[in-house]
C-alpha cells in the first residue's frame, strides 16, 4: 500500500503541476497581498545613495533589458524612473546588450508618464529630463569609450528639442550640457539581464559610483561586486523592485520607516506617494506562491520516495 501511494506521489502528471502553478501565481494578481520581508542590504544601499544625489544631477543609465525579463527588470526600471522624476534628477539612457532595449525603455517611460499625467504630476520629459543615447552593439568597446571620453563616446547623437522642434546635439540638452566626463555623472546605473553587468564593473570602475540591477538568476554572482565594495548598490530580481517600492513608500532609517542595522544612512520616502507601489508589489506575491508550491512539490516527491522505499523493504 505504502509503495503504491509512494509511486503515485512521485508520478503526478506534469500538466497538473502546470495547471496548479498557473492558478497559484494568478490568484495574487487579482487579490493583491503584501509580503512582510525586510529589504536586502544592496537595495537599501542603492536607495540611500540615490536619495543623497543632489537634485538636478545627471545619472548614466544603461537600460540593457527587454520584455523577456520584464518580471525582474521592468519593476526595477520603473522604480528608478519614479525616484528620478520625484527627485528631479536627470538620466542619460543608453543600451549595449540588445537592439530592442532603447525602444522598450522609451515605451516604459511613456507608460509611466501616462499615469503621472493622469495623476496630475508633470511628465518625466525627453530632452529636459532624459535623453536616449541609443544602442551600441559592442559593449566592451563602448564602455571603454565611455570611461575614456564620454563626449566622444556619444558624439553626434541628436534628439529633438521640444521647444524648437529641431534635432539638436544631446550635449546641448539640460541633461548633458554640464557633463564632460564620466565622473561628472552622479551615479552609473546598469539594469541588465546579460553580461553587461560584468563589463560595466570591468570598464567603469573607479570612474563614478556604480549600481547594478540584475535578474534573479544573476544575483549570486553579482553579489560578489557588492560585498567587495566595487558597486555601491545592488537590486536583485523582482525582490529588488519590491524592496525599492517599499523603501519609496516608507523611507530608510527614518521614523516609521524601514530600519536597517547594516546600512547606517537614512533616506526619506518619496515626496509624492501617488502610484509608488506598482510592478514589484504586484509581482512579488506570485513569486512567493510559486516558491511555496515548489517547496511543497519537492516535499511531496521526497515523501513519495520514502514511502516507496518503505513499501519495497516491507515486501
Amino acid at each position, binding site marked *: 500500500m505504502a509503495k503504491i501511494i509512494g509511486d503515485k506521489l512521485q508520478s503526478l502528471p506534469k500538466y497538473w503541476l502546470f495547471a496548479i502553478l498557473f492558478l497559484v501565481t494568478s490568484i495574487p494578481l487579482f487579490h493583491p497581498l503584501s509580503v512582510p520581508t525586510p529589504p536586502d542590504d544592496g537595495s537599501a544601499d542603492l536607495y540611500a545613495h540615490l536619495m543623497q544625489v543632489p537634485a538636478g544631477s545627471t545619472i548614466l543609465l544603461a537600460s540593457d533589458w527587454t520584455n523577456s525579463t*520584464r518580471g525582474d527588470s521592468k519593476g526595477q526600471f520603473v522604480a528608478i524612473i519614479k525616484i528620478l522624476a520625484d527627485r528631479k534628477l536627470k538620466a542619460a539612457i543608453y543600451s549595449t546588450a540588445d537592439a530592442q532595449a532603447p525602444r522598450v525603455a522609451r515605451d516604459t517611460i511613456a507608460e509611466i508618464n501616462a499615469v503621472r499625467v493622469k495623476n496630475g504630476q508633470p511628465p518625466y520629459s525627453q530632452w529636459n529630463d532624459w535623453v536616449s543615447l541609443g544602442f551600441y552593439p*559592442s559593449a566592451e568597446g563602448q564602455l571603454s569609450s565611455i570611461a575614456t571620453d564620454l563626449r*566622444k*563616446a556619444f558624439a553626434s547623437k*541628436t534628439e529633438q528639442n521640444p521647444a524648437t522642434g529641431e534635432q539638436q546635439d544631446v550635449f546641448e540638452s539640460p541633461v548633458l550640457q554640464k557633463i564632460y566626463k564620466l565622473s561628472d555623472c552622479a551615479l552609473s546605473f546598469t539594469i541588465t539581464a546579460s553580461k553587461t553587468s560584468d563589463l560595466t564593473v570591468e570598464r567603469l570602475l573607479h570612474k563614478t559610483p556604480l549600481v547594478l540591477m540584475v535578474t534573479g538568476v544573476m544575483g549570486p554572482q553579482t553579489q*560578489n561586486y557588492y560585498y567587495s565594495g566595487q558597486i555601491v548598490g545592488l537590486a536583485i530580481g523582482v525582490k529588488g523592485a519590491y524592496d525599492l517600492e517599499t523603501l519609496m513608500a516608507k523611507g530608510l532609517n527614518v521614523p516609521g520607516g524601514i530600519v536597517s542595522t547594516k546600512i547606517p544612512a537614512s533616506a526619506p520616502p518619496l515626496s509624492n506617494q501617488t502610484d509608488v507601489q506598482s510592478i514589484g508589489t504586484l509581482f512579488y506575491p506570485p513569486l512567493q506562491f510559486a516558491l511555496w508550491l515548489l517547496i511543497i512539490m519537492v516535499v511531496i516527491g521526497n515523501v513519495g520516495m520514502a514511502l516507496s522505499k518503505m513499501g519495497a523493504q516491507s515486501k
Partner: protein
Amino acid sequence: MEFLAQTDPGFWFGQPETMDLRIKVIGCLVFGFVLLAVLLNVPSRWRKYIVGAITFFAGLFWILQFFWPQPLHRSPTDLPANPKEVVSFWLDDAVPVVSDFTSILTAMLTLLGIFSLLRVHLGRLFKMQKDWAFSLVLAIAFVCQATFSLWDYYDRKANPQITAGHGWHIQNYMSDLLFDGMVQQFEAAMFSMIAFYILSAAYRAFRVRSPEASVLLGAALIVMLSYMGVVTQWDGFVKSMAGSNQFLLNFQLSVIRSWIKDFVQTPSIMGIEFGIGIGTISMGLRLWLSLEKTGNI
C-alpha cells in the same frame, strides 16, 4: 599616429544624416568589400599570416589600453612630457575611434547573420523542402517587421506628434502591433514558460538520495524560506524565545541565510569566477597569438 587619435572631431566623426557621412559610409562599405575580395583571393598560405597580423594588432591595442598607464586629470591643452605619455595620450585619444570600429564590425556580424539565415530559409522555401512553411513564416515576419519599423522610424522623425500619440497611420499601428504587441509578448511568454519546467524538474529530480543532496536541499529550502514572509514570523519567534541568549539568535532564518551567502555561496562563486577568468585569459592569449588551430582561415 594622428590617424586614429584625432583630438578634434575629424575624419572619423560625421554629423548624422548629412551627405558627408553618407559618402563616408558608402566609401567604407566599398573599401570593405574590396578588402574582403582581395583577402579571399590571396593564396591560403599567406591568408593565415594576414589574418593573424590583423588579430594581433587589434588585440594589442586593447591590451595596451588596459595595461598602459592612463593620463589622469588630462586637460585638452596638455602635451605629453615623455615617450611614455606620448603612447598614453595616443591611446586615450584613439579609444573612441577604435571602439566605433568594433561597434561597426559587430553590426556587420548581425548583417552576416541575417544573410546566412535568409540564405538557408529562402533556399528551403524555393525548393519546397521539408518544413518550408516555417521558412515562409520567417520570411514574411522578417520583411514585415523591417518594412514597418523603418517606415515608422522615418515617419516619427518627420512628424514628432506621432510619438506623443497623435496622427497615427497604418505604418505606426503596424510597427506597434508587431513590436510591442507580438515580439515583446512572445519573448515574455517564452521566458515565463521556464517556471513551469523548473517546477516539474524540481519535483522529479530534487530527491534526498545522498548526504550531498540532503545538504543541497536543506540549504535551498532555508534560502527560499528566508525570502518569504515567513522569515519575519520565525525571526520574531526566535528573538522572543532567545531573550539575551546570543547563541539562540543564530537560529533566525535571516542569520542562517546570511551565513550561507557570506561563507558558502559567495566564496564558492568567487572560486568559480576566478577559474573562469584564468581560462578566459588562456583562451584569449591563444586567439590573440593565433595559436588556436581549429577552423580554416
